[in-house]
């Protein structure tokens, strides 16, 4: 009976202790909580706390994001509600909850109502397999990264459901764009991850961190670059936000939503960067490991850093066009990903399980290849993309 739970119990420190405490609990010599109930209660508590932590961090994240973007634009940002505006997310939530939930005529009710739910579950599911520290994770799936790739595909369906179910043409445009974009960017994203996996030899997120002798960004620069762009596109952040494209499609696939349904979409979109930053930290920045500071702190510092860069890019860059985004995926990132994969595979074949000085040699080779590839491919595109300085020079001539 006990055996089925053992691997989980031993793998997760939080969960194991809680489970132990519940089963060891005796009142008048009887143990009131049977095994299966203890398992259930402990599991529920852990999952509940993680989900809520994610949501709370995200809501605080919206405040940080708005303040930071405001400072990028040399404004102050929301500062009315609470000290430094810290309570703004709560005010937002209250406002959204108390708002009328409108439903336009002619929507496909089931599809329309189900879409927000399907949109928010996958980003939260990512956190099920993210290791925050040694022995601090919900589960150590042996196919962790595969699981992430699988669940991040689900929002595509939700997006299309929202766009189609709304019965609005802006929404439909947004949904069609979204499906095309997300399906395309799955390919380079997976290709860039495979490089890492070749080194590690395991799909488990914990194994990936533990076998990172150096942060993989040093050994896999090209992979990191591709993954960074691909994941930005996956979560529809600027400059890839064609799905929402507020200046073109009003709000894209969630044009017709209001109240908390709209809030759910927004929440999911704000959770996404945290999820993306967590994945990037785990795959390329050595996860929770670092000197002096405790593991979880290192983890959150790295996540915060990646998140800041995502934000910085969002605040600066204009949006790409649909065909350019698809072109970027298939003509630029896909070949680069293949090159990266072949080079890494060759290196792993040559050196087997590299440790010590071989890793630096490998890093050197990979950086050289990355720079050469980027320069060559950039020259291929930049022929058309030079600035024109002739506006005033012309003035004198004609």
């Amino acid at each position, binding site marked *: 009976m006990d055996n089925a739970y053992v691997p989980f119990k031993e793998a997760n420190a939080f969960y194991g202790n809680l489970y132990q405490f519940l089963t060891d609990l005796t009142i008048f010599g009887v143990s009131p909580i049977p095994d299966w109930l203890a398992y259930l209660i402990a599991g529920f508590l852990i999952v509940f706390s993680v989900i809520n932590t994610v949501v709370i961090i995200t809501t605080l994240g919206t405040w940080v994001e708005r303040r930071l973007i405001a400072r990028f634009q040399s404004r102050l940002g929301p500062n009315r509600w609470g000290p430094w505006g810290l309570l703004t997310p709560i005010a937002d939530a209250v406002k959204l909850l108390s708002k009328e939930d409108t439903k336009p005529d002619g929507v496909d009710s089931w599809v329309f109502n189900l879409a927000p739910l399907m949109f928010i579950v996958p980003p939260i599911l990512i956190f099920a397999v993210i290791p925050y520290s040694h022995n601090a994770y919900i589960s150590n799936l042996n196919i962790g990264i595969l699981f992430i790739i699988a669940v991040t595909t689900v929002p595509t369906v939700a997006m299309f459901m929202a766009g189609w179910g709304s019965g609005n043409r802006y929404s439909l445009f947004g949904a069609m764009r979204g499906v095309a974009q997300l399906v395309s960017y799955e390919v380079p994203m997976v290709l860039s991850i495979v490089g890492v996996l070749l080194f590690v030899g395991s799909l488990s997120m914990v194994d990936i961190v533990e076998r990172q002798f150096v942060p993989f960004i040093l050994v896999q620069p090209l992979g990191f670059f591709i993954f960074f762009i691909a994941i930005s596109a996956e979560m529809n952040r600027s400059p890839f936000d064609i799905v929402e*494209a507020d200046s073109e499609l009003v709000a894209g696939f969630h044009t017709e939503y209001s109240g908390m349904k709209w809030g759910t979409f927004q929440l999911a979109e704000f959770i996404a960067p945290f999820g993306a930053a967590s994945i990037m930290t785990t795959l390329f920045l050595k996860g929770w490991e670092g000197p002096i500071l405790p593991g979880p702190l290192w983890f959150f510092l790295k996540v915060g850093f990646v998140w800041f860069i995502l934000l910085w890019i969002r605040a600066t860059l204009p949006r790409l066009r649909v065909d350019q985004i698809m072109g970027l995926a298939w003509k630029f990132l896909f070949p680069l990903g293949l090159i990266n994969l072949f080079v890494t595979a060759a290196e792993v074949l040559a050196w087997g399980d590299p440790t010590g000085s071989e890793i630096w040699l490998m890093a050197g080779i990979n950086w050289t290849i990355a720079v050469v590839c980027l320069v060559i491919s950039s020259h291929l595109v930049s022929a058309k993309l030079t600035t024109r300085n002739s506006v005033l020079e012309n003035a004198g001539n004609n």
Partner: protein
Amino acid sequence: MPIRTEPITVNIGPQHPSTHGVFRMRVTFDGEMIIDVEPIFGYLHRGSEKLAEERTYTQVITLTDRLDYVSSMSNNLSYVLAVEKLSGIVPPERAMYLRVIVAELQRIVSHLVATGFFLNDVGALATPLMYCFREREKILDMFEMLCGARITLSFMRVGGIFQDAPSEFWEALTDFLEYMPGYIDEYERLITGNEILLSRTKDIGVLSSEQAINSSISGPILRASGVKWDLRKADPYDVYDRMEFEIPVGTVGDNYDRYLIRIAEMRESLKILQQCVNQIPDGPIRADTANLIRPPVGDAYGHVEGPKGELGFYLVSDGGISPYRCKIRSSSLINLTALKDMLVDTKLADMIVTFGSVDINMGEVDR
């Protein structure tokens, strides 16, 4: 049976984040490609021309403020030039210089707004817009020193301007002329060389020079198409004939050229401002005119090179105290004539960018 596809018709506007007001386009798409565009106007129609027939010549100035509300000074100038032509009043020299100064400041304001919103339409999440508005505020502060208002200025009067500039205005203007080139450089560093902007704007929405002339396009759009035509040089009014400046001219006539022209014109405006500050003489600022002007029977057409193009007023007088007919040649409306030619066979995303690069103002389109 072959697969049947259908075009999809979408109403862009009248409520849409990037139609710059209540403008509506009925666009037919084939997928993401545009196959037909029909602009629909009138949501902001206030009948300014009719209202002008019931107001005295001075009171009409307040109506002109509200035509293109990001460039009130140019509207004022165009109107008073028409009345002066009609009644033969010549303003004093200091007034003419001050008019040129405020008109050029207004051109910078309008181009800042145009560039900011254009880049916002490209999708830059309001960052360039905020930077542009930061400088716009400085100029609006100057306008407030000058005439106590920031947007609806009513600054000019027939035969001059209403009051001389205070001393703090000159200090603010000198400061502005010093730091503004640096800020324009900053915008250019931020976005001009940005590859995403280049790929979004180059060779999109091309308007050939023949087509531009044939469609009566004016202003920066005409110049971006390679026609060297600027009323400040071609038909100088006030003291523009004493100013030395270049007319920036584009080569291709695409969105990127229109953006570059606006940036270049801001720099040229700064040059004109500097010359005005150096040359401005002392003296009266208003010709000796009666408060109620009664021009002789006749008609006159006064025009200026406004920030958005040629803004003209065709006034007919019957000898009374108010214009018999006041026709406004609005640059924004006529610049939209070629919209269809620019948009067909581009994509949905290009439509917004092209429309943003035309830079219209609904207050002037619908009047």
